[in-house]
């Protein structure tokens, strides 16, 4: 099983990288672009066949290391 953990800065935490990407998109003529937020995606291969167990493991990993709960939130998808 594969766990796909998406880590994003929380709302309210300044994301200068997202803002810079947004400005660059505007510069390229994408006039409809509003707020842009940048995050990261971490794919983890798991020797686990049970989806619930895989999700629980990925969540523990995200809480312990992958995301910093002071500034980030995370979402988990399984594949």
């Amino acid at each position, binding site marked *: 099983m594969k766990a796909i953990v998406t880590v994003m800065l929380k709302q309210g*935490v*300044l994301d*200068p*990288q997202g803002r*810079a990407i947004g400005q660059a998109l505007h510069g390229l003529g994408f006039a409809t672009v509003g707020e842009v937020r940048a995050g990261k995606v971490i794919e983890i291969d798991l020797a686990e066949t049970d989806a619930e167990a895989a999700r629980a493991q990925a969540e523990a990993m995200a809480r312990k*290391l*992958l995301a*910093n709960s*002071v*500034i980030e939130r995370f979402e988990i998808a399984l594949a």
Partner: protein
Amino acid sequence: MNAAIIVFPGINRERDMAIALARSLGRAPRMLWHRDDDLTGIDLIVIPGGFSYGDYLRCGAMAAQSPVMRAVRAHAARGGYVLGVCNGFQILTEAGMLPGALLRNAGLRFLSADCHLRVERADTAFTGHWQRGAVFRAPMAHGDGNYFAAAATLDRLEGDGRVAFRYAEADGTVTAAANRNGSARGIAGIFSENLRVLGLMPHPEDLVDPLLGGEDGRPLFDSLAAALAA
């Protein structure tokens, strides 16, 4: 009085720190590798600056999980002194030993320049050789020095007198212009609840020799020497 510097892979300020400590303490610190976990007889642990583990994931996130940090936590829990500078500050926040987090600089640029810091309290082991409100110059060199914490945490830090230093003008005024990385409330360094753990972004250890342009950073190390001798 014994000091130790912890060296993680990718750390690069450990020798500057060793020189600054040796000057004020009168003896060279021990250098500990990140796999060491025996801190017996150590009074002060210093985590220097650099790019531990290549800043992978988040600055300091990997180092915070390394074996030596368990020993550092236990040392702090016993009331031991810990100083974290730059990457060391990031590591202490990632390890949960200091609140908040260091975000990418608000302007996105790596900042390599001198800044001025205002001393917010002088009654601690780290700041005793300054006067409250004193201003000193310190080099900074970081890409992720934008201190962030929830508003309630910031209020608590201020209420408890745990702000150590703020970015300021040379005359001590705290301004947005002096706060080049965008830190919340201009905070450059904070203490733990018992005032024995200090984390800060700029590098006082790089200004302890007139040959390098001044000794502005020296009171930090002289303060520690006095506190630890007591």
